[in-house]
């Protein structure tokens, strides 16, 4: 069972309070009606599913109810950082810096 830091509650809580909500930073196209079938496939079905650093969404469903984002290593399952929904994807430098912090 993972421990997850909710960026809204500012607390680390056990995984069973949270629900995984899929890959992060996939925005719904603003004029979705106008996109091609291929773009719709890309938006709705295609997933990065990376081995290593993944950007994903969680919802603190049995807590504050908020959706937020996390950076997690899918090989070790370590959560590197979490951040509020709507914030930009952390840069490689930020992730590396955080990894160093965690290693200490």
């Amino acid at each position, binding site marked *: *069972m993972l421990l997850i830091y909710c960026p809204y509650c500012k607390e680390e809580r*056990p995984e069973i309070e949270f629900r995984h909500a899929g890959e992060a930073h996939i925005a719904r196209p603003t004029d*979705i009606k106008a996109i091609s079938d291929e773009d719709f496939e890309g938006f*709705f079905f295609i997933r990065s599913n990376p081995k290593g650093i993944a950007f994903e*969404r969680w919802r603190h*469903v049995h807590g504050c109810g908020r*959706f937020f984002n996390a950076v997690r290593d899918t090989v*070790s399952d370590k959560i590197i950082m979490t951040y509020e929904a*709507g914030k930009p994807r952390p840069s490689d430098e930020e992730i590396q810096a955080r990894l160093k912090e965690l290693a200490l």
Partner: protein
Amino acid sequence: MSGANRIAGAGRLTPAKTVRFTFDGDIYTGLEGDTLASALIANGVHLMGRSFKYHRPRGVLGAGSEEPNALMGIERDKARKQPNVRATVQEVFEGMTAVSQNRWPSLGFDVGAVNDLLSPFFAAGFYYKTFMWPKAAWQKLYEPVIRAAAGLGVSPDEADTDHYTSRYIHCDVLVIGGGVSGLSAALAAARTGASVIICDEQAHAGGAFAYEAGVTMNGEPGFDWAVAAANELAAMDNVRVLTRTTAFGYYAQNFVGLAERVTDHLADPEPQQPRERLWQVRAKKVILATGAIERHMVFANNDRPGIMLSSAARKFLNHYGVAVGTKVGVYTANDSAYETAFDLKRAGVSVEAIVDCRDHPGEGLLERAADLNIEVLTDHSVINTSGARRISAMTVKRNRGGAGRSIAVDALIMSAGWTPSVHMFSQSRGKVAWDADTQRYLPGEYAQDCTSVGACNGTDDLQATIDEAVAAGLAAGKATGGKRAAKPKLAGSGAGNWSGGMAGSAAGAGPDTTVKAFVDFQNDVTAKDIRLAVREGMHSIEHVKRFTTNGMASDQGKTSNIHGLAIAAEALGRDMPEVGLTTFRPPYTPVTFGSIVNHGRGKLFDPARKTPMHGWEEEHGAVFEDVGQWKRAWYYPRAGEDMHAAVNRECRTVRAVAGLFDASTLGKIEVVGPDAAKFLDLMYTNGWQKLKPGRCKYGIMLREDGFIYDDGVVARIAEDRFHVTTTTGGAPRVLNHMEDYLQTEFPELDVWLTSTSEQWAVIAVQGPKAREIIAPLVEGIDLSNEAMPHMSAREGKICGVPTRLFRVSFTGEAGFEVNVPADYGRAVWEAIWARAEPLGACAYGTETMHVLRAEKGFIIVGQDTDGTVTPQDAGLSWAIAKSKPDFVGIRGLMRPDLVAEGRKQLVGLKTKDPKTVLEEGAQIVADPNQPVPMKMLGHVTSSYWSENCGQSIAMALIADGRARAGETLYVPMPDRTIEVEVTGTVFFDEKGERVNG
């Protein structure tokens, strides 16, 4: 008398405290604190089990949880039979009943032992090569025979009457292992004030000190120190000492599972005591002090009862006061076995010879042996043993040539060296590393916040172990917020050196031999089996393991894995680390299902959700159905009625008079805010801006892919307030879906969502007399048709409590849904019932609700749709607002296959014989005479006997269904074919006039 082999003055048990127990029906006496194994050996019983495949007689190998051989059944009563119990772990108690396993008719004479004679045939993996002819015989003949021969103990055959419990707990420092290293670390950590948990699988702390007789700590005997240290720890407020508690699994982020055996050692457990307790520990730091496990020597016939690890014999002697034999042989590749021999000799046991395969034993050992008059044969090996149900002799031979010499013995103790227990470290996803100097795997790169100390870390010297453990304990305590504390001053001496030894087959069991030199005792894997695997191309250690089953028995390879690896490496001509190591998988030792499940049984398996009216429904004879976690009233049978009769009566009554239905399980979401209508426009296919406060509308919700996700009636309570209803099962996911879009895609909308599913009790009053029933109870709402037409909503009072009263209908009758605060649900229901019953109305359940809505062609999402159905498919195109620029699913609906011809569409079906009721799920074809596989057009989604229509009715999803109106189609059943006609979906009151009545 507690056994002829009990040595007066030896061990720590109290001679006066005897316990009587039975083994295979014979009565024995042991001492309190004995394990089953020590008590049986004390009574001269070495034959304790039979092996898995060859049914060879077996005695104990070890004295702890690594035991592969001495597995037994322990039976308290009919419901509490426990198979596969390690005799070396199970403590005896007064009246205990133990039985041997995997033998017939008796342990002494086991017919299955014929397998041993046939063993040349039963080489590793033989079953992959045969039993293939004739084809049918595998399942009919071979497999049943193999299955019956396999398995060890017998499964319980009654429900377990014991109970189990569980605790979640956080601590600063978790110390796994209560030997000297664990105790030292715990003492150091505890003194910083950190919260500490220390656990050990044994009944007592002390680890190896239980048998290492010569050790002193700060000048006192090692074991006494350990007991005192454990007591000191237990007395501290910040420490929890858990004995009989195995750390079995190391999961992500220092989450460790511990299994505590609470009552298995007690003769009469209190009824309220749990049998076991699961501890789920989240530790800031974990200190692994898991020690090391001795390995056996791999030589011909090394498995006879009486042959055991030297550490086991030493523990039997020094802790339990039991001599494992009267004439003991020793076979070793390292120094630790010498200490056992010396202890035995000093206790008056004859040690026939120490056979050491090395030229040069450790310093001083030969002299000490000579002082005790023990013959030491260096550069010698034991190349064979004899004895039927117990060893009677060992054959000893000089390593390079010479004739064998037979030495009569009744026990043989052995040591090939010690394997550091890196199980928990490896489970933590740490990488083990091969230490070439000491020829063993040790903790390498760490993956979690833990430290290994002592023998499991390859630290051999006692003082070095203590220092390492103290340093780790202090560091862990400080790192988790403890204060500075003085180091505990611990000085240990007198421990033997356990490094060195050998892995793999010993003399006489090498590659060119065909002897049975056991590597994995329980699974009967021999050195030659491993070589055979390699010969057949199994070059990965994982292949070797799976092909031979080495290390897969209930001991999970604690004594066998390293030997197997060494033999495979030798056969491959590679170094051990090149061959790799099999994965250490949880649990460390087997864990009872009941312990993991603990309270999650029966009612607590999954909580049942009940509506406020549940009690009334029970009192009025309702039969309930499970819908998700909800218990819903299904139908209300009266005396003499079956389900069919009850439902027919309910259906008639609702349309003739009225009925009450508990609709409280419907999901309810309050959508509030200036942008509420705008938000619903995005969430539903329908348009909401024009819906006036006080009006209701049926809404369809899609997923982004265009398929129907949920539906329900939505009432606009005020300009900025909607009362949304969802399906019963859909409530949580619909709210999640809405929250997801609101928070992440449309955060600019000013809307709040609140689940109100459990805040409102919902009483549907449906039927011609619905208004008459509720009218006298309602205050402040004009119920007339003109003032409150179909699909309207009002706020007011009923029975004096606030209500949201909806004029809605899922039956096609005029009707109301009375929403009241849940706490008043039953009272209001009873008040309405008091009005309804004298008028001839009934209470009806979900089955009648289903029939009535089907008569009207109303769909149930999840029954008439299945996640592949669009609104168009379901005949709900009218619910899609054409003018909206966007809603969830708008693009999905445009995909090529969703607009293609030939999609399945929802239609009605009437059977040609009106009495025939179709089966839900039945498939529909155009040509019933075509061969299988048939071309299926679709399936029956809903089907009922309609008492009101006087015939059966059904709905179905059928390819191009709407264009087939009037066509005859066929429903092929196993015994007949049913003719059906495609119709519209409305079977009753087609014009829909009754709803306005």
